[in-house]
Structure formats: structure tokens, C-alpha cells
């Protein structure tokens, strides 16, 4: 029961990233792609064949990769530095701090296969700490698009934005949620569904689960608002405060630890401005057992029905 009438088509957001960077690079000769032997996993094969000299592959050396990105920006290039998110962020966090964030270098960091996208490969390959690590760094917008349309829009936005950013992408298939032609706006939440009893906030691979959860809640007579909050920093305080004031309860869900991520960021805004009951769903501060990303999201209470249950319980605390 509760299964949708027809299964929506799912898309790998890396394809939207690859198509967009190739299109932009054809128009802007300063764009370069930097990677750590991740041509395949970053879907840079097409870029490599079209612009072979503009693919800077440093080999398996992430600390150097970040520094090289900063140097390329200093030399007037526009680098998209791509790698599996756990290694791009965790391995070279101090380089991201000093060379990119503190130096305010115009480098676009692209974390591929973030969250638990590498599922069965285990927690060494999971990147469920990267929101926490990156969102404390000044000058560095942190963005997790929810579908291929928002991914393409964010990649295009990044090229025009004069400063660093971190784009957190997944390889787990997601349906289209935003309309074709959607323009990405930094720090602006997207209202995907109006509602008055509770607000569901997510980004990345969790947004579509929130939409489905809201549909399940509607069947139970509960009106749930859904916000897609791709930008974790700078965060859309107005949308969060309005949601708290108008719906009185907020559920967050993320493919990330519940410590320091999207839920924490939302909670910071809520406690400072409009305290209401909240439930933060995510990876509960443990290393995940073996399983695919989809299995693990269900395992950690983020199946749409479980999200709906969590929202229903939360409403009772209002």
C-alpha cells in the first residue's frame, strides 16, 4: 500500500553535472576540471575527450589536488575540483580551510558520491560528516542539490559566482522535483509543498523521500509543508523561521550524521529565533552496517512511512 501509481524515473545527478560542466567549458576556456584519478566516478570522461588539456588529473593525492585547485584559480583558471566526497573533504580538510576558504580562492569543490552512496563499500567510503566539516568554514557555500535539474542549475550558478563553494552530489538515483528551467539561488529554500501542521526539510537524496512522506501524511489528514534546502550555508533563515511560526514543528532528514549537518543547522536557526519541537533524522552517530544507500536510509528511519510516523509523533509535542 501507499505505493505510487507509477514509479517515477530516477536520475543520477552526476550526469547532469557532467553535461553542464561540458557545456560551460565549451563557452568558457578558463574552466578546468581537476580530479584525483576519478575521471570515471566523477563522470569526466566526456570532458576529457572534449578538452583533454583542461583535465588536470593529479593522481591519488587529494591534499595536492586542493592546493593545485587554489593555484589554478590564482592563475586565472576556473577549476571544478572533483573527487569522492569522503576523500575530497576528509582527507584534505585543512587544505580546504587554508587554501580555499581562508584564502577565498575561486574554486568549485565537487564532492561526488556523498553520503552513503558507496553503500556496501562501508563507512570508510561514506561521507556523512562533510556538512559538519565544511559548513563551519567562512566564505564557503555548502550546497546539496535534490535532483538533476537543481544539480545542473547549481553547477551553472557556481561558474558565475566569484568565490569558492562546495557542491555535494550523489550517485543515488532521484526523481525530478524542481521544474525544468529552475534557476539556483544561493541560500534560498524551495517550497515544494504547502502545509500547516508540520514542516519537512531536506536536501540531496532525502528531498524526494520528504515529498512522499508528505503525501502519506495527507492521507492521514496531516498537512505537511516540504522545503528543499539545498544550501546548508548560508542557510535560508527566513524560510525556517516562517516554517516554525506557521507550522509549529519541523522534521529534518539527511544522508549525513545527525550531528553537525542539515538538522543541526536548522536547529540553530530555530532555537535562536522561534523554538518549536523538532525531530532530526539522519545517521544516528554510528558507523553504518553493510547495505546499499537506499537500504541504509530505510534502516536509519528515513523510509517515507517512517518519516511520516516521526512527523506524526512530533506534532503531538506541539
Amino acid at each position, binding site marked *: 500500500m501507499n505505493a505510487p501509481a507509477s514509479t517515477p524515473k530516477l536520475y543520477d545527478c552526476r550526469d547532469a553535472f557532467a553535461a553542464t560542466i561540458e557545456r560551460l567549458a565549451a563557452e568558457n576556456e578558463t574552466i578546468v576540471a581537476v580530479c584525483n584519478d576519478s575521471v570515471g566516478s566523477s563522470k569526466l570522461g566526456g570532458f576529457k575527450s572534449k578538452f583533454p588539456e583542461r583535465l*588536470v588529473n593529479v593522481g591519488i*593525492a587529494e591534499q*595536492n589536488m586542493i592546493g593545485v585547485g587554489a*593555484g589554478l584559480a590564482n*592563475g586565472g583558471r576556473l*577549476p571544478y575540483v572533483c573527487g569522492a566526497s569522503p576523500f575530497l573533504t576528509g582527507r584534505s580538510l585543512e587544505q580546504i580551510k*587554508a587554501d580555499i576558504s581562508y584564502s577565498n*580562492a575561486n574554486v568549485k569543490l565537487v564532492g561526488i558520491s556523498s553520503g552513503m552512496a558507496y553503500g556496501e563499500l562501508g563507512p570508510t567510503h561514506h561521507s556523512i560528516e562533510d556538512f559538519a566539516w565544511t559548513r563551519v568554514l567562512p566564505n564557503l557555500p555548502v550546497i546539496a542539490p535534490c535532483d538533476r535539474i537543481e544539480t545542473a542549475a547549481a553547477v551553472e550558478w557556481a561558474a558565475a559566482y566569484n568565490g569558492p563553494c562546495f557542491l555535494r552530489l550523489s550517485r543515488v538515483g532521484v526523481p525530478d522535483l524542481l521544474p525544468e528551467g529552475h534557476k539556483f539561488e544561493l541560500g534560498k529554500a524551495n517550497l515544494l509543498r504547502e502545509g500547516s501542521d508540520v514542516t519537512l526539510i531536506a536536501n540531496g537524496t532525502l528531498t524526494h523521500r520528504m515529498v512522499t512522506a508528505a503525501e502519506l501524511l495527507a492521507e492521514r489528514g496531516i498537512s505537511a509543508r516540504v522545503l528543499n534546502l539545498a544550501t546548508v550555508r548560508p542557510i535560508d533563515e527566513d524560510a525556517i523561521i516562517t516554517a516554525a511560526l506557521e507550522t509549529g514543528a519541523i522534521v529534518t532528514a539527511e544522508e549525513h550524521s545527525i550531528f553537525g549537518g542539515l538538522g543541526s543547522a536548522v536547529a540553530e536557526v530555530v532555537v535562536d529565533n522561534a523554538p518549536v519541537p523538532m525531530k532530526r533524522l539522519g545517521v544516528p552517530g554510528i558507523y553504518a552496517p553493510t547495505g546499499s544507500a537506499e537500504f541504509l536510509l530505510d534502516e536509519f528511519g528515513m523510509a517515507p512511512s517512517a518519516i511520516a510516523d516521526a512527523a506524526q509523533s512530533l506534532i503531538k509535542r506541539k
Partner: protein
Amino acid sequence: MDIKELERLAREIRLRDLQAVFEAGAGHIGGEMSVIDILTALYFRVLRVWPDQPKNPERDRFVLSKGHTACALYVTLAKRGFIPEDEISTFLKPHSRLNGHPNCNKVPGVETNTGPLGHGLPVSVGMAKAAKLSGVKYHTYVVTGDGEMQEGSNWEAIMAAAQFKLDNLTLVIDHNRFQQGASLSDTNDLAPLRPKLEAFDWEVTEINGNDMSEVVSALEHRGSRPHCIVAHTNKGHGISFMQDRVDWHHKVPSKEQYETAISELSEAL
């Protein structure tokens, strides 16, 4: 500028650096004294830079990866006209843009923020690679400490520079044989540096890094591979009681020591 003038200027920079560290009550004077001849040669003879256009795309790039010797860089930048000379007296003072490690968004002439070790060389590889991609003919120079070469990120960058055939990159290792807590040989001895760099397909020149004519000719050298200058220097060079003494990594001279040092450096002027 000829060698004699460069030598005189290096002594002036040493004097101003010493005074700044003494007045601020902090700094990294040992490593500053060892690197000042290299900085002087770069800024007054070798680098194509324009103080009134610090972001000119054609400027040569210089990165002081051993960012803890920032005071020596600030004094050199001031002498070269990037910042006012009287601003040196604000070194480490509240809200001064001259803090303990250089900030590229505040201090003109600084290219990237350094301080944590092992950062400057990877960034310099990116700068040199950018010149290869854009066709702009600038050269990139980076100075690291010898202890700093213990950071693994440097060896990632050394591999990449050779792979990218960056003949427009010069790495100077300020080989003063001491790191913060002890000598290199008692810590993690990288010496001899030459065979290690050569094994990674770099061209290596060894010089006396406190001999101005050797410094200048090594910096002006152009080859077909990335170039490493192993600059044998003395920590605390120019001040007798500081020379080759590990405790002068970041010690501050007493009034009496300060006056002795001033007198020794002034004598040589």
C-alpha cells in the same frame, strides 16, 4: 640591482625584521634570518612584479610556504613598495593586517594564505600549471623550510610537478638544518635532499643560500624540468649568538641581546 646592493639591502631587511620581532615580543627570527637573502634576491632582482598592480595577471608568483617567517616577507614587501614601511610597526598588534602568517586577502603581494606547513608547494604547482594552460609567461617561485619537507603533501606536489613538466616552477628549500624543536637529523632527517628530488625527476641545484651571488644565479636559472634549489643556510644568519641554535626558532631577544644583534648587523652595513 647588483650583488653588493642586494647584500646591503638584505642587511637592512634583517635589521628591520629584528626590530619588529623585538618590539612585537614574538616572531620566528631564526628562520627569518636564514631566508632573507632569498627574499631579497627575489623581490629586488628576479621577480617580475609591480607593487602598484599586485594582481597583474602577468606577475611572477611567489609563495612563502614557510609562512611563520611572515615578518621577513612583510619587511621585504614594504621595502619593495607593496605596503607602507611604517606599517611594519603594527606587526602582531590588534587588528593589524600583518599577523603571524601572511594573508592574501589583506596584504598586497601575498598570493595565498600559508601557515600550516606543506601547503605552498601544491598551490604553486597549480599556479605553474595555470600558466601552462593560459600561455601567460609568468614564473612561479615557492620557498619551503627544510623541516616542512616532512609534510607528505609536498611529495604529492613534487610528483605532480614532474608529471606536468613544470619548467616554470622553482622550489627553494631553506635548508637551515633545524626545525622547531630540534635539528632535522635528530627528528626526521631528509638530508641529503638532492637525490630525493632527483629521483622524482626534478633538476636540483645546491647553493649557499646566504651567498647573494649564488642565490641570484640559481633563481635566474631556467631549465626543462621543475627546478629545486637546495639552499644551505644558517638559522639566525648574521647574528652570531643566534646562528645554528635551535632555540632561536621563535625566541625573542632580550634588550641586551637585541643591542648586540643590532650592532653586529649595523657593522656589516
